[in-house]
């Protein structure tokens, strides 16, 4: 089952991020791993940090600001969460 507007992807993290981003996706952009958070979704850098805070609490991980500033796409955010979960878990 895939929600409308979300590209099929069997990754649970990906789906959870999509749910967190939904309220900020004002233009109704189809969410794929290649979507650029700032350029495509037009989310400002501070909002990205706030979404990340939600992600941190959802997964009980800490994502350093230094890492976030290098993340451009939804896929990169998902990959970073996987990497940190592995390291901190």
């Amino acid at each position: 089952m895939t929600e409308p507007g979300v590209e099929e992807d069997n990754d649970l993290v990906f789906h959870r991020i999509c749910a967190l981003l939904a309220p900020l996706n004002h233009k109704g952009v189809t969410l794929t791993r290649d979507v650029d958070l700032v350029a495509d979704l037009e989310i400002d850098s501070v909002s990205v940090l706030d979404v990340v805070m939600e992600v941190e609490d959802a997964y009980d991980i800490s994502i350093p600001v230094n890492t976030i500033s290098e993340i451009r796409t939804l896929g990169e955010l998902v990959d970073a969460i996987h990497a940190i979960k592995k390291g901190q878990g």
Partner: protein
Amino acid sequence: MSLFDKFEKTAALYNSLSEMGKNPFAVVMEEVLGPTRARIKGRETVLAGTHNYLGQTFEPKAIAAAKRALDEEGTGTTGSRFANGTFAGHKSLERALADYLGLNYCVVFSTGYVANLGAIAGLVDPSEDVVLIDADCHACIYDGCQLSGAETIRFRHNDPESLDKRLQRLDPKFKGKLVCIEGMYSMYGDIAPVKEFVDVAHKHGAYLLVDEAHSFGVYGAKGRGVCEAEGVMDKIDFYSGTFSKALAAIGGFVASNHPEAEYLRFSSRPYKFTASPSPATIASAHAALDNIALTPALKAKLWENARRLHAALTQFGLRLAAPPAPVISVLLPTKEEAFAAWNFLLDRGVYVNMAIPPGTPGKESLLRLAVSSAHSGDDIDRLVGAYGQMAEAFPSARVALAS
């Protein structure tokens, strides 16, 4: 051309502000008429958007001290604190600040921004330390983290539990942990639960730095800040502040009971590689410090004005960001309305600050009123009058009433 492409969107917004009315980011004080009055666009205006909390900009003793320093020591130091820019005045101001705060050590920097930059980058080593910062910390704390190169983790604003969780799950590889918060946050005028932060930080063996830029001179029985009001002056590790608000000059400082704070004098690049404050600046800051220490009535008057304004704005039904404080912010739903309301006030001879996302917490747009002890009864009447008209003209600035 590609160097400038990235500015296009912001430039369009900036220019459109000037076309729609007056640009809040390009206000010029054409003539300064006193601590709370200036001429803006040819009109005498009440200043409620400066941080002259204790009205010291025209304090006669501070002006006399600055003139004397100019005559006796010249216009500038032409050097950095580290090399050739430390005069007797810099050292005696450091001593006076330490005494005022009841802390043992104090290091003076060239601005408040530079003090936080210098404290963070001077204290942490990117190869082994980590910094944890409140999400709503000022840009200079973010920039200090960036300059340090250390791993930086944000926790939820004013939420000690959120900090606790992040300290709990830190990689044990980190040796030093520095937590940064502020006393009073300048956008909303809200206060940090410093005591709880002290407990959480120390439980995890972390050091706590509190930036009291907006609360120095203003909170606590002796004006030492929110740390004093919370009874934890002797529990925090580092205290940073500025001369550009309650002391009405320019410069900054870091104070501490750790003797190692003195190491900032060689470990901190923002201390070593920028010119030190001029003799006149140091002299006026010192005289203002002496004056506020001897005149508790200034702080009392500031709070009287703040409470009166907060009560009046509450009466108008305006949506306020925090309980009474020297900063009183009205929240508006959009930046367009904030801009229109800001212009509305300026047209009525009242200057406040407009703040819009992304520079504000929680995506809010707001009008920030900064109170001064020097606001006269007439100033307050004008402020209240203009805000009352604004509340009528902008229903969206008011708290929604249950129908």
